């Protein structure tokens, strides 16, 4: 049982670090503010939550605080991303290589 929990902890830490590295690489390489925002959302939702699952698998640490932090991150991550995306859209930042812009069409169309 302890062996299984340690295997779960090792797998969770490895996969979480992989998702964080992918998110930060996307934050460096993607061409656009909105695409970068999409990449950093992966760090918030997958990276930290998998690390917290690893802490829940460890018997020495209490798991209630980790569960509270998982719920908080699951709620606040999309809210933060939506607030930043709304700010970028309202500031009029350009979208590179965009196929179509439905929001601008809806805002410019007469009622």
């Amino acid at each position, binding site marked *: 049982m302890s*062996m299984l929990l*340690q*295997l779960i*902890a*090792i797998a969770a*830490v*490895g996969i*979480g*670090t992989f998702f*964080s*590295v992918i*998110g*930060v690489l996307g*934050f*460096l390489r993607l061409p656009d*503010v909105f695409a*970068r*925002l999409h990449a*950093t959302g992966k*760090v*918030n939702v997958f*990276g*930290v939550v998998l*690390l*917290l699952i*690893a*802490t829940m698998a*460890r018997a*020495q*640490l*209490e798991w209630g*605080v*980790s569960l*509270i*932090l998982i719920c*908080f*991150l699951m709620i*606040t991550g999309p*809210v*933060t991303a939506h*607030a*930043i995306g*709304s*700010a*970028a859209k*309202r*500031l009029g*930042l350009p979208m590179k290589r965009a196929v179509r812009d439905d929001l601008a069409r809806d805002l410019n169309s007469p009622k």
Partner: protein
Amino acid sequence: METVLNVVLCTSLACHIVMMDIAIWRVWRGENAIDRLIGVDLLGTLTAAVLILVALISQRGIYISVAIGLAVLSFVGTIALAKCLTDKKMF
């Protein structure tokens, strides 16, 4: 198995510290204000991840409570800065 877990944890801690350096560099040399704001948000998230890794390595649960406080403050700060950048006023 315990040594394997410790090696994985220390490697992950080194990766997260390098990623924090990248985020600080993007805050310093960002293209525009929203890009820097995304960098600040990412920096808060990675700092919480580093605190959780320290809690895993030292096996003390107090660092997870510190990560909760940091997550709350980072959330409020990011929302307030995004609203301040859009509306040009705070309230």
